[in-house]
């Protein structure tokens, strides 16, 4: 594995649109067989990075190498990447099958072979029986799955997936995640996955790259990044709420694992909200408001508007405050 060149290697990519600096120096590697999730708030430049990699956008600076080969100057079709567009970009003049078989066809496969591959890909995304349909009448989720199948069917060694499941329900997503995971493992493709779904990132990605306003602010192993965000901004972006001021320029980050409900002092509960698999409560702690999710079982520790809570100091971390 280690002697294989990375499936993707980006260095110093910059791209502006008129006055908007969409990408401002992004360097990132995706190894063969590895899935990297690209996370970041809306408009931070994720899709632009993917478009640069696919060769649809010329970077203002920087270079793109795919499977060890510099492709910065190459046209999209010479790069061997499969891209799922955020807005699908299905071919309106082709049927569902025609759309999915398109990639194999233009890469020279015979019709029968191409269609067989297309059917396989369609089965993977759980779209049986729609082969002959025009894409115009598809539902949002159906169209998205066609787009995903179309990219998968190319058999490209590098897949660029731009929020490929944003319009699917959770069960289907879970199924697809399992399917994709085993597919990626089987074909050894490098995958760069843009997603806003942290479960998806966790389930699929070995590493995560967090992007902010055109730059990567933290790259690391998935659990590492989730467990140890580098800055207050990253922590907040990943959904951490217990970021309490701790002197100028610093915050005290209290991860949920550091919270021990049912032991220690009583604190008053200022908010509670039922969530999937439990209840989310906010406790007026001396450091500031602390939120935590109690499982159905732990909820028993609640005593009206009070909760015993102790913080395991060793789990608390100081992070630089870099939020605007």
């Amino acid at each position, binding site marked *: 594995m280690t002697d294989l060149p990375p499936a993707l290697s980006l260095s110093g990519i910059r791209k502006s649109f008129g006055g908007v600096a969409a990408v401002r120096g992004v360097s990132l590697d995706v190894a063969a067989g590895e899935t990297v999730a690209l996370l970041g708030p809306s408009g931070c430049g994720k899709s632009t990075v993917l478009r640069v990699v696919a060769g649809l956008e010329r970077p203002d600076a920087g270079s793109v190498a795919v499977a060890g080969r510099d492709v910065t100057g190459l046209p999209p079709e010479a790069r061997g990447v499969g891209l799922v567009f955020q807005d699908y*970009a299905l071919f309106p*003049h082709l049927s569902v099958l025609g759309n999915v078989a398109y990639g194999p066809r233009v890469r020279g496969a015979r019709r029968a072979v191409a269609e067989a591959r297309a059917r396989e890909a369609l089965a993977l995304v759980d779209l049986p029986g729609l082969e002959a349909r025009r894409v115009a009448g598809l539902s949002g989720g159906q169209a998205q799955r066609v787009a995903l199948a179309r990219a998968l069917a190319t058999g490209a060694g590098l897949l660029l997936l731009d929020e490929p499941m944003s319009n699917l329900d959770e069960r289907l997503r879970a199924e697809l995640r399992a399917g994709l995971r085993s597919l990626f493992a089987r074909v050894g493709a490098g995958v760069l996955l843009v997603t806003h779904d942290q479960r998806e990132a966790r389930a699929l990605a070995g590493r995560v790259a967090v992007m902010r306003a055109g730059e990567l602010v933290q790259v690391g192993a998935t659990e590492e990044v989730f467990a140890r965000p580098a800055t207050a901004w990253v922590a907040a972006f990943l959904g951490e709420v217990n970021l309490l001021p701790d002197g100028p320029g610093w915050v005290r980050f209290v991860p949920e694992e550091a919270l021990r409900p049912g032991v220690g002092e009583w604190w008053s509960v200022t908010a509670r909200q039922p969530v999937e698999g439990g209840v989310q409560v906010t406790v007026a702690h001396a450091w500031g408001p602390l939120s935590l999710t109690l499982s159905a079982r732990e909820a028993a520790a609640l005593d009206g508007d009070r909760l015993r809570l102790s913080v395991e100091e060793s789990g608390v971390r100081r992070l630089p405050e870099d939020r605007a």
Partner: protein
Amino acid sequence: MTSTKLQGWLLALPGLIFVALCLVLPLARTLREGGVTLDVWRDPYFQGRLAWTLTQAGVTAGVAALIGVPLAFLLSRFEARGKALFLRLLLLPFVTPTLVAVLGLSALLGPQGWVTRLTGVDLSDTPALLVLGNLFFNVPVLVRLSYAGFARVPGNVVGAARSLGAPWWRAALGVALPLALPGVLAGVVLVFLYSALSFGLPLALGGERFATLEVEIYTLTALQLRLSEASALIVGQLGFTLLATWAYVALSRGGVGVPSGDLPRARGGARAALLGLGSVVAIVCFAPLVAVMLRGVLGTSGFTLAYWQGVLADEATPLLVWNTLRFGLMALAGATLLGGLYALGAWRAGSRALDLVSLLPLMISPVSLAVGYLLAYPVLAATLPMLIAAYTLLAWPLVVRSLLPALRAIPPRLFEAARSLGATRGAAFRSVTVPLAFPALRGGGALALATVLGEFGATLVLTRPEWATLSTGLYERLGRPGERNLGEACALATTLLILATLAFTLLDGGEGEVT
């Protein structure tokens, strides 16, 4: 210049060379021969002609837009029985030789016309008849080009406007129209140019009183050989047509989208409006044709097949049909090839100047070109290449005007998707751009063919007896007095219309999108 731009200009080059050779050079020769004495424009007579020319063309374009744009919009939003056939038959007026149209209109609205006798309203020798005649020829162009524009407006976008509270007319005007603008404006500008530069129709319908500038140019050029005065008029006419065209080019920015398939059936108000406007257009555009067809089977003593027998017995008739088809197809090939390349070039080059150039053939007085041909290419006078070139010149703007907005409307994402799936530029072009633009090419081809099947090339070049077409055969009969000549001319006109319908059916592939 980026390579895409350069490539665009290269693709447009054959068209540009063609325009240079078949238009710019001959026109320059004409102007040089006469010299340009702009003094003519001081003459209030010519100022009056100019004003009249602009007025009648403006009124025509306005009325055509008022009827045609809403109809095109409705046709693009709703399914209606016989829609494809209707759009196809709408090409027939374009095929019709001017004098035939005049005869059809007079049979209905002349002093002894059927409608006149029914209603007692005599429009003959009034400008209303002229505008009706202009509409007869030109509403079809407007409807078809606007329809193509509207068909590309995504249904959801109009739906969004409606659900945000816009009544249909507001959604149509505020959302659909701006997005369909390239098609709609192409239609409007073509109507304006055709009406401004037409001369057969105003003369035949109104005599010298309704003579347009083009009539004066014709008279001064072809009959009086006063080329210097004619040149001044030509330059002036070119000036105002360029102005109109420039306005069109400047305004025609639209949206992207591809025609979508299934549409709902029209009901309620939409259905009523569709039927109403459709009927108005059908009456304006088809009634004169029906009248002509009827005259082909009605003699003084009622129904007769004598005229048809006469036409069928005439040994020249097969030649007329064959020539009509032959020239039509040759020019169609020329126009689609040149026009197709040119539209691609203009699209890639992203140059609005190229838009302007593509309309030049419709801005130039044909007579002045005819003189230019004789001066520039005497050796080629009355040769087949010249004839086909002339036909092609008149037909290719229609191909370009159909195809270019369609190309511009293709969402760039689709091409990108193809490339990222492994298609080379060429393969992506073949498998995405071509299929998405093909209906528009077909539509443009149909309009181009219609132009050619009519009479027009004949005014540009010298012809030969063995090149007689259905329309020249028909004019020849109308050059002799006598009932049978009129009847046979109408029968020939009917033949032309039938032939054209067949050709359009083949060209449209029988089904699918008509644009």
